[in-house]
């Protein structure tokens, strides 16, 4: 059974950071673009709240995991563009393996997929 479409899913603490880092792996991007990309790549399931996005971006910038600079977009608009730093790449690797562990562990607890629908 397909999960019900949900307009919003509250992201786990720290998950947004992971998603941002992952999104930036494909190239530098501004905040709006990151939000769009996360939504698109999650099949419209994950909608990033702007109120969480910008604090997260600036927190990551402060931690030097990402770097920011002002650029002019193709629409001739000044935008603040974020880019993954070397430390950010390392962090992403670590976070990814942690995430894999967590999701594996949770999956183990929940049992084989579809068990619930059978019961």
């Amino acid at each position, binding site marked *: 059974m397909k999960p019900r479409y949900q307009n919003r899913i509250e992201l786990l603490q720290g998950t947004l950071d992971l998603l941002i880092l992952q999104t930036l792996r494909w190239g530098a991007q501004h905040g*709006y673009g990151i939000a769009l990309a996360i939504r698109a790549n999650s099949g419209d399931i994950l909608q990033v709240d702007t*109120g969480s996005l*910008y*604090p997260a971006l600036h927190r990551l910038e*402060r931690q030097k995991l990402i770097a920011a600079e002002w650029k002019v977009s193709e*629409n001739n608009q000044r935008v*603040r563009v974020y880019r993954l730093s070397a430390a950010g790449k390392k*962090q992403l690797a670590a976070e990814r393996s942690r995430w894999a562990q967590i999701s594996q562990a949770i999956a183990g607890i929940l049992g084989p997929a579809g068990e619930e629908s059978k019961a």
Partner: protein
Amino acid sequence: MKFPWGDAEKRKQELNEEIASHLQMAARDREARGESSAQASAAAQRELGNAGVIQDVTHDQWARTWLEDLLQDVRHSLRTLRKSPGFTSIAVLTLALGIGANTTIFSVVDSIVLRPLPIKDPDQTAVLAFHKGNGPLQFFFSVPDYQEMGDQASASFSGLMCYLSGMDGLAVNGKSDRIMTNYVSGNYFSVLGLKPALGRLILPSEGETLGADPVMVLSYSYWQVHFGGDPNVVGRAVSVNGHPITIVGIAPAGFHGMSPFLSVQGFLPLGMASIGVYPKDFMVNRGERLVIVTGRLQTGITLQQAQSSLGVIGQRLSQTYPDTDKAMNIQAFLRLQAADPQHTTLVISGLFLGLAALVLLLACTNVANILLVRATAREREMAIRAALGAVRSRLIRQLLTESVVLAFLGGVAGLLLGYLGSTTLGSIHLQTDLPVQFDFGFDWRVFTYALVVALLTGVIVGIAPAIRSSSGLATVLREGGRGIAGGKSRLRRALAVAQVAGSLMLLIIAGLYARSLMEAQRIDLGFDPSHVLNLSMDPNQIGYSEAQGREFYKHLLDRVRALPGVESASIAAVVPLGYLSNADTPVIDGYEPPTGQSVPPFLYNVISPDYFETMRIPMVRGRTFTSADDAHTQYVGIVNEAMSKQFWPNQDPIGHHFKLGSEPVHSIEVVGVVKDSRFDSITSPIAPFFYLPFAQHYTFNSLETLQVRTYAAPEAMMPEIQRTIATLSPDLLVFDVETMRQGLYTLGGLLGFQIGAGLAASLGGLGLMLAIVGVYGVVSFAASQRTHEIGIRMALGASPADVLKMVFREGAMIVLVGLAIGLAAAFAAGRVARNFLVVSETDPVTYVTVSVLLATIALAACYIPARRATRVDPMVALRYE
């Protein structure tokens, strides 16, 4: 608010722009999907939410960084420290000892030197003093001189006040107490800018006339302790020295006179000093120098400017009153300078603060050593953190936070230890019943000092290990966990050398003080303090007239002499090395001081006939006083050899005459010469001194100390003698009851050496302990690092003796280099302490004994790990890798 990482305002603007561009892009996308421009921007706006809140929250990500990081570091440090309780408690205890020693010494320095008097703008007050010619600095002025100075100095001083101190008997409802009093000029409290806690203070109109204005102001603490803070005490009739006095007010809390040590309990108008022991003419006699003069500088006038106007006043006084004020040169001093003209207090304070700092440095060294060892163990942790992206500066900061947290814990424990220490010091008995105020309580200065010391300690202790362990991290990982011990053990060895040197210096200073105390105890005092009892009393305090007082002392001496077990008994106004003294500038007949010089004031004593017998001071020539010398016969005096040599060199002084500067009426004939004896100091050369008979000088000297020489132990006679006094005069207050031997332990006597030796020994002992732990730690750590090497050597045929020698040699080098440096440092420190020592500052006995002692203990500390190294099993050591 501005933060160190950049311009917060600029960041806010950029954030504003960033969110605006977000909105524009969202709106453009919607327009592209066909929404109208107005719809699109409204929807984008709605989707975004409250832009202001977003900006604030985002901005907070920056604004909270440093605090968050700090809290995180502190939390992390506390967790790390909790994980190794053994290390933490040893480090905290070590630092606590160091910080505690510093806090103790500082609290004493604070209360003596730094803490200002609780008066208005204490920096604006100055104490006046004068030289006569090139004589010594004198702080006591005559009342007539004071009055003229006050009239003439108004350009520089907004007010000059004066006071004189006394010990008087206060009787309330028939119960008497001995209190310390100040007889003060009417403007005393207004010059100091003080307001009463209750009632009123002494008024400017009071104190001008002898015996008028029988009023008294009590100190706040005396009022609290003895009257329970009863407000009805104002207006109460009491008696002082048997004279009726009314209590009119209470001085403000915390104020207890102008001395930081002595606690003045009652303030009376200057003119009332006639009820004290003072001569009746003190208000008009220009030769009677009794009052201390303190002034408040006019606003905008510096001390130097005031000096020059005082110079003019001094010249005028010298010209107008050449008899008394010739060559008078008046100067003004800040209270600290005045209390410490030789800078003795400052030098001693500096010396002991330095020694305490040295102890702390030793403690720091030990903790730094432990941290270095720990850093080795944590190299892998750090390397992994760095590999995971932790910035180096962040790692250093975290390690520093850890050591600062450690130091703070040590600081808190150190404050507790320091409190114990200063309470112990504050409870030292000074061998006097004077109301001494030795309050080494902690104030904000002590807390600030401890805080700063702890912070510095944390940084000093942590900086080297932090930098060390965050460098060369890549190597660590490559080496697969083998420490980079080589470089670090060099630093550790240097630290151990410093420890040996520092503790040697501390111990040598302690040794010099201890040897000085021993020498001082052995010094020939010129009198025999054994088997002598001292009991002081002042019949004036219970209102005895002169005739009654004379009668009392006569009967007292007769009765005490008749007691079995008493060899001899006498009375004296001054006890050698005690806190009270009589001084006068005598005028010697036929003696003209060399031009430009004047006779300085000399100390003297007022005694009864058997004094020299009781004190066992031998007569050199002439006769002692007899009961025939009384107020109706020729005034007589006895001088010591120093005085005889100075004024009558190569002559027989007997038959020569001199007069008291304060009482030039009677010509005093020298009838005897006694051997020099020590009266005010154990160490300085014995100055001229003279003795006058009690029978001819009762005024000013109703306070006398009964001295009794006993055959058996003097303490045993104490109760019986006190009973004898009580039967003669039941109300009389007897104080400073002690044996003459105990009486030697005053600040001017042996107590200074005793405190110095005790303090230096405590610091030295602490230092020794820390140094031994340090040397032991370094040598055993080095040996354990070389287990592998030792195993190979032994496998290749090295004997245990070779291994012992190898490990021991390393330790011995540390000890020997440390000793050499320490000797040089001690020599330098000894020069500072020179003036407070009896033995020479290069006393070879001390240097050799202490060095040998320290070397023996330190080498023993090296021997233990060396011995252990010989038991290394080569097979185990080699298999270990």
